[in-house]
């Protein structure tokens, strides 16, 4: 049982940004373990590191607008037994400090938790510079790194608590704007696990992060059209839950992947690599195709880049057209 809310796709669904959930998770984790420290590069409030600054001022470290320092100071603190959460906007961390993350965190195998806020085009009016789309690709190629993209604020809270305890370099991807909250306290979450959020037989929609809600809403619409879409939620992009993904692909024989990120090297690539090696399957990757974002409202941008529930429905019809007609 996935224990999801029943009003998916409805106008009255609760909205909250997943960074809020991250803040709750971080505070809870910090209360449980005094080794947890919070580091920020001049975005303390926005990234929710403020929960540590307020509750545990001695365990809050402000490094200024210096993301390379953020990563390397974090690595040093981890070397002395701390569990540092280092936070900035994803465009800057891991965008600007990738080599420091590679060498001093991943190769060093230090349990630094990288918090990439404001990922995806749904950042909105700030425009392309601040809409990080390449972070999944950058992080998932690094040995030792765990990569997680929660679907909503409730899952972000669980994911934060989980990476606080996993003892590994970890990246958590967060979005800026308020988005539907559709998982609940009882919805299962474990690092490295993917979940069948909706059972179906005609096609598999595999989604990560903020796009899983759109996949669920699309499945609801498709049901009315007589199409049975399976939705696989993949919050942990690395390591991948291969068996859940392969089982679903085998069952339906058709896969759509969707992410709010560059599809080159991103989540869709991870799924496609797996399927190409172990179970060649027809796949279409939805996401940003070799393009930068731009200013606009979040929903306008999701429409422009073709990553919303309606676009999923159209894509499914396109792929099933021949077989269902």
């Amino acid at each position, binding site marked *: 049982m996935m224990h999801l809310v029943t009003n998916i796709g409805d106008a009255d669904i609760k909205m909250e940004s997943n960074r809020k959930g991250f803040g709750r998770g971080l505070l809870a984790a910090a209360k449980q373990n005094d080794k947890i*420290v919070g580091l920020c590069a001049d975005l303390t409030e926005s990234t929710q590191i403020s929960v540590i600054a307020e509750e545990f001022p*001695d*365990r809050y*470290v402000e*490094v*200024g607008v*210096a993301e*390379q*320092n953020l990563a*390397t*100071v*974090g*690595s*040093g*603190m*981890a*070397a*002395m*037994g*701390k569990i*540092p959460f280092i936070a900035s906007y994803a465009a800057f961390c891991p965008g600007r400090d990738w*080599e*420091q993350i590679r*060498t*001093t965190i991943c*190769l*060093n*195998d230090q349990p630094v938790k990288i918090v990439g806020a404001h990922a995806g085009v749904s950042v909105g009016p700030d425009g392309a510079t601040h809409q990080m789309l390449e972070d999944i690709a950058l992080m998932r190629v690094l040995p030792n790194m765990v990569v997680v993209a929660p679907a909503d604020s409730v899952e972000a809270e669980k994911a934060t608590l989980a990476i606080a305890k996993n003892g590994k370099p970890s990246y958590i991807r967060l979005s800026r704007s308020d988005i539907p909250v559709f998982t609940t306290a009882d919805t299962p979450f474990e690092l490295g696990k993917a979940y069948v959020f909706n059972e179906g037989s005609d096609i598999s929609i595999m989604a990560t992060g903020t796009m899983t809600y759109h996949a669920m809403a699309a499945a609801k619409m498709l049901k009315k059209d007589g199409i049975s879409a399976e939705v696989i939620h993949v919050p942990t992009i690395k390591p991948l839950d291969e068996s859940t993904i392969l089982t679903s692909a085998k069952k339906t024989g058709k896969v759509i992947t969707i992410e709010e990120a560059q599809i080159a090297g991103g989540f869709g690539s991870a799924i496609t690599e797996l399927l190409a090696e172990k179970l060649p399957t027809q796949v279409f990757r939805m996401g940003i195709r070799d393009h930068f974002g731009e200013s606009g409202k979040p929903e306008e941008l999701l429409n422009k880049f073709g990553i919303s529930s309606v676009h999923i429905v159209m894509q499914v019809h396109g792929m099933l057209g021949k077989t269902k007609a």
Partner: protein
Amino acid sequence: MQLTIKQLEEKAAQIRIDIIKMLEHAGSGHTAGPLDLADIFTAMYFHILKHDPKNPDWQERDILVLSNGHTVPVRYVTMAHAAYFPKEELMTLRKLGSRLQGHPERKRLPGLESTSGPLGSGLSQAAGMAKALAIDGVGHRWVYCVTSDGEMDEGNYWEGVMFAAKYNLHNLIVIIDRNNIQIDGPTEHVMPLEDLRAKWEAFGWHVQEIDGHNMESIIDACSMARAVVERPSVIIAHTIPGKGVPFMEYDYHFHGMMHNADEAKKALKALRTLKGKIESEAY
């Protein structure tokens, strides 16, 4: 039992010889930096650091971060002399399966505090370590960081300098190997660094300048640095690149050049005879 100054100098001379032997066997690797850091590393491992070769993870140890990872041969040789591992293992440098990687990897060899090679990020890591100790209220452990001068070209370096000053990390002591060379030439041609003392002072650090080959000066400067409260300390150690081997000294071409067997033989002869001052080669 602590070594006398004379014994430390003899130890450093032996370490230089082993560096040349090791690099010759490896067939590649950096030469100038390891040779010029031999006195500093000898002073560190045989006088200054609180450490236990039999228990590299000892919770009370001082920390030595090597930021310019390409000079790691001097660290490997000094660690072997300090009995962290058998000297025979030095001949595995840069070979497949060796714990002695071309650039140091923390997870491969106990006693290395961090992985380095990409320049300019060691000081920030050392500052993070010092900050973590400060948070825990640990006042009796020191974090030393050896850096090159060339890596001060990196922006990350100065981010760390500002950070350490902001948090008054008096338990952090940085030693700059000021040998004035980098791969493309003299540092003041590639990217001028002077006035170094004024820069560090302006950033709020306690600054000392020493002869990086004078054992007493190295030891005294570190004692002085530990006595400084409320501020991090930097020791600008003026060194001669390739120190001990006349045809390598001051020549930036030996920053990274691997030497052939003939050069190694000449270098060993120079080191064993104290640049021809004595006749014996049986050092």
